């Protein structure tokens, strides 16, 4: 399948050079590959996105989509998977969505091992609202809402996810699309909660592409053991001259849906014909 079959007719309004274009292309390529390999049918893919620049991705991919409220990417996907666990669900969230407004859902989805892929467009800034701090904004970064510079310690999303029990924890970079495509594909294939924090360039409010490019390296090419939680934790601390990207941690664990409903596909079930037996309990 050609990724262009996922092209939508909606007019793209992202800024020229936006890192979102890389995530969009990588996601479409990964989806095309999933379809091509026969793993899923196009109609079985559902995406969801939050609110912010990234959110428009729901409009830009011609696939089932749930373009939700700010911060709420995960709960609808959880509902979708409970209703029909045959669907392949991929969530896209901004750093404001994922780490501010909707952080509780993220923590719990990881802990439950809900079988979805969750991709965070982390540009370290609120962009669509024209520059305010997010939980990942670096100290000293000046925005309209914090003109003297942010003083809050930024959140380390990888540490958060490792602590919450996510079974697939990765970091991508919009400056390396091939790598990103491969990560998204692995995440979509992972059975369980697959988390990717994507370092995303925002040319308008936080251009990081040139800053990160020389520092970024693929930790999976340097012999990192993805089954070692302690090693993953140590690697996730690294954020100076070198910035690791790739898969930090992966483990197999039973998924939420299976434990909740076994193999039932609720979307195909008929209504219960009678409740008389239960009514009789009250007689």
């Amino acid at each position: 399948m050609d990724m262009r079959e996922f092209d939508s007719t909606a007019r793209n309004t992202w800024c020229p050079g936006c890192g979102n274009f890389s995530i969009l292309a990588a996601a479409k390529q990964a989806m095309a590959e999933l379809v091509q390999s026969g793993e899923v049918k196009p109609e079985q893919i559902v995406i969801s996105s939050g609110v912010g620049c990234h959110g428009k991705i729901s409009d830009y991919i011609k696939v089932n989509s749930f373009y939700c409220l700010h911060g709420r990417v995960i709960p609808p996907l959880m509902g979708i998977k409970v209703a029909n666990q045959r669907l392949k669900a991929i969530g896209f969230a901004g750093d404001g969505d994922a780490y501010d407004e909707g952080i509780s859902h993220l923590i719990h989805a990881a802990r439950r091992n809900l079988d979805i892929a969750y991709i965070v467009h982390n540009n370290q800034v609120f962009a669509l609202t024209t520059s305010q701090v997010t939980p990942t904004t670096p100290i000293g970064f000046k925005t309209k809402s914090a003109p003297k510079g942010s003083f809050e310690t930024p959140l380390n999303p990888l540490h958060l996810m490792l602590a919450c029990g996510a079974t697939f924890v990765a970091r991508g970079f919009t400056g390396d699309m091939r790598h990103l495509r491969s990560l998204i594909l692995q995440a979509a294939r992972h059975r369980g909660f697959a988390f990717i924090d994507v370092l995303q360039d925002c040319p308008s409010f936080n251009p990081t592409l040139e800053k990160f490019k020389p520092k970024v390296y693929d930790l999976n090419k340097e012999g990192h053991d993805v089954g070692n939680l302690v090693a993953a934790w140590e690697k996730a601390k690294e954020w100076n001259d070198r910035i690791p990207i790739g898969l930090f941690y992966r483990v197999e664990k039973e998924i939420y849906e299976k434990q909740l409903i076994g193999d039932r596909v609720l979307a195909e079930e008929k209504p219960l014909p009678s409740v008389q037996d239960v009514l009789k309990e009250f007689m």
Partner: protein
Amino acid sequence: MQDISFVIGGLAGDGVMRTAELLGKTFNHLGLYAFVISDYQSLIRGGHNFCKVRASGRQVWSHLEAVELIAALNQDTIVRHEDELTEGGRVLYDSDAAKYEGPYKPFPIPLSGMVKQVGGIPIMRNSAMVGAIAYLYGIPFEPVNEVLTWAYGKKAEKNIKLARMGYEHARQNFGQILKLAPVKRLPMPFISGGEAVSLGAVKAGMKVYIAYPMTPSTPILSFMGTHQDELEIVVIHPENEIAVANMALGVAYAGVRCMVGTAGGGFALMQEAFSMAGQSENPVVFVVGQRPAPAVGVPTYTAQADLRFVLHAGHGEFPRIVVAPGDPEESFVKAGEVMNLAWKHQVPAIILMDKHLIESYMSIAIDEREVTAEPGSVAESWEGEYRRYKFTDSGVSPMVFPGTPGAVVKVSSYEHNEYGHEVETPEGITKMMQKRLRKMDGIIKDLKGRETVKIRGDPKAENLVVAWGSTKGAVLEAMRLIDKPLKFLHIMYLSPFPEWEVTKHLERVREIVCVEVNMTGQLRSLIREQTGHYIKKAILKNDGRPFDPVGLSAKLKEAFGWT
């Protein structure tokens, strides 16, 4: 006419509520009509818990404040309820835990000692109490035995033994209050509104129930949870109310009927998702159980003060269905009805209940054939590319669900075009807004063929009582105490407002009194807004308690000038 009313009380943790429920069930078994209201505080141990139990040879709609018997597991119960005793009242009490030397007839019974004798645990005092109460009301022991066996299964033996001891003690020491005669009637459930609303939703095809615990809707979560296998449903308790509501949207989007339950405060947290349900046209049913608010308010008590809140909840303009059943039977029927309407018209629906309705038990006939799963507006086929928000005359765009070959199903929180893509042009916004709002016409047309209000009492009377929700029970009982012709208009649908029914009833009468458990007259103002009629007289309160029929009848007489 046999009609009994008693109170049973003790500390939280003493098992009072279970005991009252079992007694109610016993009366129900005998063909009597029982009603049990529970009154408890927001604590787990201690405090004061009590239940008012009423049973009669004819349908009872409410408890009574006045009782002829206090059944006390502790001293506090006697102190708190002595002034509710009617003339000749009796005080049955655990003589190992309390004393009574007042003007009413003392019935001491050594409950704690009996429990020690059989080597039981303190909570089993209830069983001996049940036995004694059964004797006092002239019930044979056999139905007590049956109910205890049903309730405690293999552990019933000691409980039955204690019930027998209580029964014998009463027989030897106390005089019977009266001899309840069994009534021949078809079996009917002794059920709460919370349980009935659950079953109605399931009968209409609900497969998923999602809730975060919050009184008074927690019993629905417990009932759904403990019955999930029999009902073939999935019950989810996620991290918070915001997750609950947004999850429900996802379930509906994927084609599965879903209900959520909460209280006013929880629904306040769900409002953004409720608005999203309107915008994305995802049918989700919300049960909102009212309790006295603002804020946390009084968690374990009742109110009817969230009517205006649910009518206006959620930002933006979109059609919604709001129904307020008045008893368990209506809860069953209306839950099914709004589930069907929501899926037919693709709108969110609210079932507005309250603590009194959700948690009180009553004997009431429920015919499960009243509810069937009616088909939703699903597309069998479509021309060209599938459009989730296709413009139609009715405003309803036939749905398909993700997983359907050849269809791309896009729903959106943003204002959108027929395909679900964002739009911002004035024409684009107007057309989609109009499409959504047009659905209200279809809902109204649909409702004109269904029961939106109920008329009780004398249909030709010139004096009209208007009420909604659980206040129905107190009004029906109060009317029995008034020997003047009275008509009662019980309004069940609040959105769309059935002005086609309400107006004609308001026009045909001389005097109208509106009765509500709120202090601002929310239904009264809604009637004025929707029909232009201003109802001058209202009986209002918001003290956490439902109306007592006797007190209400006095207030009604006063309002109509009959004193």
